[in-house]
């Protein structure tokens, strides 16, 4: 998948879970620091990504992902 498209989809998911406007989410936003996600929401994000992309993510690694950019890369690696 093309990076730009992937990025858009990721942001859409994030916006959905965190109940924000996708426009407010910058490419390198930190989930906790910039977007205020708490640990419950972190779990929801993982589940939402899995559902959106039809993949199964490794928890440990998934929970270490800190920024939107990292998430995009991480998910991309599963889509190859």
């Amino acid at each position, binding site marked *: 998948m093309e990076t730009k498209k992937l990025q858009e989809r990721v942001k859409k998911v994030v916006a959905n*879970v965190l109940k924000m406007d996708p426009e407010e989410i910058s490419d390198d936003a930190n989930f906790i620091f910039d977007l205020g996600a708490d*640990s419950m929401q972190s779990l*929801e994000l993982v589940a939402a990504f899995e*559902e959106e992309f039809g993949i199964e993510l490794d928890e440990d690694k998934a929970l270490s992902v800190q920024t939107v950019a990292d998430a995009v890369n991480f998910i991309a690696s599963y889509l190859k």
Partner: protein
Amino acid sequence: MAYRNLTSQEIEKLKQQGCSSESWGTLWVDEKFTPEQIFNAHFSGKVTLGVYSETLTIPSLGKHPAGIWNASLKDCRIGDNVLISNVQNLYHYDISHHAVINTVQTVTMTGETHFGNGTELEILNEGGGRELLIYDKLSAQIAYLLVHFRYQKNLIDKLQRLISDYCESKVGTIGHIGPYAQIHNCQIIKNMTIGEGALVEGAILLEDGTLAGCQEDPVKIGHGVIAKHFIVQSGSHIDDGVLLEKCFVGQGVRLGKQYSAEGSAFFANCEGYHGEAVSIFAGPYTVTHHKSTLLIAGMFSFYNAGSGTNQSNHMYKLGPLHQGILERGAKTGSLSYMMWPCSVGAFSVVTGKHAANFDASDFPFSYITAEEGKSQLTPAMNLFTVGTRRDSEKWPSRDRRKDPQTFDILHFDLFNPRTIGKILNALSILQNLGEKSRKEQEFVSYKGLVIKRLLIRSGIKYYKIPVAIYLGQCLLEILEKTKSEKELKEILFSIPIKENTEPELWYDLAGMLIPKSRLETCFEKIVSSKTDSVETLLLIFDEVASHYKADNLSWWGHLLKKEYGVYPSELNKELIIQLLESWKTNTVKLNNMVLKDAEKEFDPTSQIGYGLDGDEALRKIDFEIVRGTYDENPFVKKLRLENNQVETRFQAAINALKIFRLT
């Protein structure tokens, strides 16, 4: 032992020493009796005295000669080398040798009494319907049957009959103070049986009760205690202004700091400080430490109450009828509130205020939080919190009971057929809910709870971890015990399997885990005419519990069939390796997630981690809990070490397997 009347010299001596009697003729003394140590004693009715020659060493008095000082006795039997000093009224008691009654206002009997035995507690249902008859040999398991299996009429009738008969046998008009018991500075002791070695100091009122006797693990009652219609088993300490009304206190319990309880039963190793309990069934390790904590009409075990925990059992419709069941390992957070009826699954945590009546018993290891007026369930969330892990490890080491006879049977395994069975159930419910839900739904509902749709998948993922661990663990334990292929085959073949049956339901009888089939056998035994006493009941349970390991393995065998399609006897090398690998991966995964949680123990944004354990962790100076500062946190260190050991055990097992052929 031969008794005689006093000689006239002895009477003269006694009179000189300030003693008097309504009639010296009804005073009987041991052959070897001498009057040296009897001063200012007034006797009436029939009094029997022994020999008072020893000097006793008494903790609060130092050395003091045995004897009677400043006391008024009526219809009593006083054993050898007893010290009775400053007792205004001592009526109708049998005082055993070496007992001490010092500065007590009144020790009397007011007629026939059962000493607390047969007291009926309105447990769980404050309005009645689950009455529990207490007696001094009650165990958590027997109590559980009485309270929960009301519909098994034959069983309940038999139990109640046996217990009533036993209680009748305890009837007496004479009170008992056991050997070496000590009673100091109390006000009123009425209709009591006080057992061997018990220590009672500063109590205000003890009425209609039994304090068990046990040299190895004496009962201690302390200052300001007021207790009526109650029973206390060995090794329990009740102190500091505790108020008890119609209560049962099992072994190794600690109640103190003005705890107040009514109509409640506390089993092994419970702790109650500062709070209140009404109509509760406090199974083993029920712990409540904080002021303003009320536990009412609930059932708990391996439980911790956060401060300000509260429930209501009134729906203002039919009176206080409702009850709550919290399965083992559950916890309630600070200021949490639940409106009964509710059920909380094993090892789950409840925080916040809940007005909905929910049933979360199908979901062990979960979080139930209050969000915008709804009770939200996050399944499996509590599997990898530090709290769960710590607690399950600390219980066995905190079994205080030193009495050679223990009443409550305790099984501590974190992953066991009941819990794993519940997890399997949860998995299928979640699967179902997930399939039925639509993508647009943020929440799904289930029995008064809401569950975030997205978290259903993570719940399923996480629940699979303990199942894999349990499957591999049992196998690993078998492997580690066998040295040869033959042995392994023997064990695997010997596991009892019932073809074409699902893994059966297991019960948690307030601390004891048991499969349904065996429980039914247990019922049969109880109902059978061969069972004719309460002592036999205990033996039945002991026998039943002795099958735990075998029953566990059998259940494991059925689970194996269900998950992998083979029975234990059909296991081949590949499958064994697969199971072990799965065990390894999942155990490490679980540990790592707990480790991650340890980092977040005070995770500021975790809605869950803090405010719950945070409260207790801060209050308890419990160094294994508290995050260390200089060294790595010892709990963290331990977990890391465990991960290493997992690898080692796995390798060892694989190596051992290599030499087996096993087809």
